[in-house]
């Protein structure tokens, strides 16, 4: 400091600098908040319709038993027509419960439909030029996989991707949680203050900083190039576990450190062995905190994309087998459809997948906060 401050009375310049700083820090809040709201709003607006509806580019015409047009509100849905048999002119017929007859057709003249199929209670006419749009309430997004739907087809759900994301998250946790917890127990309970603990701690920091793409390349180099295995969900899980391990380890370590030494000493004084003290006293005391870290870790790996791109093929069908070479996942569903032009059904699906992913991640984050609030420490 070259010039001593005049600290007696805030002069104009000092007061001005002070208000400038105050303005600056509040501006920072705006800069941080705006993108979050912008992202959440755009993903919700563009993605939400598809989560509960299905169908687009439909014009619906319904007729009753006497071939008279009835309001579209009395129409059956396309779901009703599922499983019908194929007829001439590409019309499919179905006889859903309630005795109503539904026909679904493509590129068929409206009047011919009306007259050629008088028995139909409801005719769902699929307009060939895409004019007009109708959406039906449906949970198809959650119950069926994308299947062979092209980027122009509005049908198909995201079941395969939701399943893949959940499965990958759980399998990753199954590997990373025991590993991370044991590592933390070593650092806090067995190795505190030793040189070995410092080396491990340093390596955990380095592992935290390893980019996900590098972790994925490492797994590729080891499992696929060197050991000759195929791309699979299991290989992906190994890469994801490498990313989750340091997160679980660090949060567990922080929690174990918070457990008062008096608890440990009380157990030792009663003759309880160290391992039992850790398993019965230390870990249960910090359990909520550890669980918080685990849930946050799962939320983080579910959003990872890079390892999936390298270690597993993206599948549009539901494959349950984690040893298979392809599986859908929400992040890869987004990156797979990113180049579909706006307005096509495939583009809507990308946003819906993004919203689904955000919902899963946010629910896990809020869950973690609830668990953390209940912690005993």
């Amino acid at each position, binding site marked *: 400091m070259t010039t001593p*401050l005049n*600290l007696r009375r*805030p002069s104009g310049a*000092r007061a001005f*600098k*002070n208000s400038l700083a*105050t303005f*600056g820090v*509040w501006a*920072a*809040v705006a800069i*941080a*908040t705006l*993108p*979050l709201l*912008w992202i959440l709003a755009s993903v919700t607006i563009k993605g939400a319709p598809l989560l509960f509806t299905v169908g687009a580019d439909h014009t619906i015409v319904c007729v009753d038993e006497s071939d008279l047009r009835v309001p579209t509100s009395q129409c059956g849905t396309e779901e009703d027509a599922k499983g019908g048999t194929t007829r001439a002119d590409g019309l499919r017929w179905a006889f859903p419960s309630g005795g109503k007859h539904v026909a679904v057709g493509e590129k068929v003249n409206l009047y011919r439909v009306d007259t050629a199929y008088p028995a139909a209670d409801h005719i769902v006419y699929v307009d060939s030029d895409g004019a007009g749009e109708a959406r039906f309430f449906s949970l198809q997004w959650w119950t069926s996989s994308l299947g062979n739907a092209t980027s122009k087809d509005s049908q198909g759900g995201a079941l395969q991707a939701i399943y893949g994301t959940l499965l990958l998250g759980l399998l990753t946790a199954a590997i990373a949680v025991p*590993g991370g917890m*044991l590592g933390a127990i*070593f*650092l806090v309970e*067995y*190795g505190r203050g030793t040189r070995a603990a410092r080396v491990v701690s340093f*390596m*955990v920091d380095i592992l*935290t*900083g*390893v*980019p996900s*793409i*590098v*972790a994925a*390349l*490492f797994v*590729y*180099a080891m499992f*696929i*190039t060197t050991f000759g295995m195929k791309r699979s969900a299991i290989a992906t899980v190994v890469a994801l576990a490498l990313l989750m391990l340091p997160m679980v*380890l660090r949060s567990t370590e922080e929690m174990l450190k918070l457990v008062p030494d008096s608890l440990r000493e009380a157990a*030792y004084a009663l*003759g309880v*062995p*160290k*391992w*039992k003290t850790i398993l019965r006293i230390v870990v249960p005391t910090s359990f909520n905190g550890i669980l918080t870290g685990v849930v946050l870790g799962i939320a*983080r790996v579910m*959003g*990872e*994309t*890079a390892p999936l791109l390298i270690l597993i093929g993206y599948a549009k069908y539901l494959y349950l087998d984690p040893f298979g070479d392809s599986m859908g996942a929400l*992040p890869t569903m*987004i*990156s797979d459809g*990113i180049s579909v032009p*706006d307005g096509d059904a495939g583009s809507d699906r990308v*946003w819906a997948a993004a919203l689904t*992913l*955000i919902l899963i*991640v*946010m629910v896990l*984050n809020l869950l973690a906060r609830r668990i953390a609030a209940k912690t005993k420490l």
Partner: protein
Amino acid sequence: MSNQPEIQSTSRVGDVLFGGAAKIASGGIVLIVLIIGIFLLSNAWQPLLDNSANFFTSTEFRASTKPPRFGVAALLWTTLLTSAVALAIAVPVAIGLALLLTQYVTGRVASAIAFVIDLLAAVPSVIFGLWGIKIFGPAIQPSAHLIENLLGWIPLFGDGQVASPGTVFTASLVLAIMILPIITALTRDVFAQTPRETIEGALALGATRWEVTRLAVLPYGRSGAIAAAMLGLGRALGETIAVMLILSKVARFDVSVFSGGETFASIIARNAPEFDTPYKAGVYISAGLVLFVLTFAVNALARVVAERGKAKS
């Protein structure tokens, strides 16, 4: 407890097993970091030997030609440029946020702001990429054109021949938002530890809130903030999917921020479907190796800076 051997002896087997498992898990972590480096190097070795272009100065990256021609100059430039611009924007904002959270607000307001930042950190990077290329990029195109028109005579801001918003400029801004939460969280922790007496001393002397910040908080937290910024840099260097979705490919390398290009991470991810032979994969693994070394160095340095700051205070 060495003077109570009889109590210890009742539990030897359990402790040996459990302690052993804890040690093995920890040893495994050390081993993993080492073998990551070894496996990457061994897989990249043969393509590196056969490489007919200079690995460090060439801007080409061709894995399919025989022999392959690849260099990391363009990748290194784009990676460092996106990260540097992102850091230049994110660090001041993060410091502002950290100051606000520690010095300006308390209680409910502070936890509400912290909640927003936590949520921002929770957004998956693929969604940042999607939003960046479809919504944010087009929205900031006018300001990008403005900068290009005003400063276009500087090569760094020159016309990059990219019509879409998939420029380094867009990618950098999105990266800045992505690394903001981590830098904020770490910086806040450091600022929060500023000794109470120092702050109260300054206040007692009649310092304004900004002077307290400048004289007490910032000097105290400087090394911590630098370490936080470097950890953020490590994140930005390795960010893959957001950058891959945003950046558009360009035919010819250009230094401008309004050009497209590839970073280390994005070129690997984009070409993953081409990993049909171990040899071709090895070409891209060589890029991954450089990225690994780069992030290792940045993270190790961040830790050294943080440790030194801790020792000083």
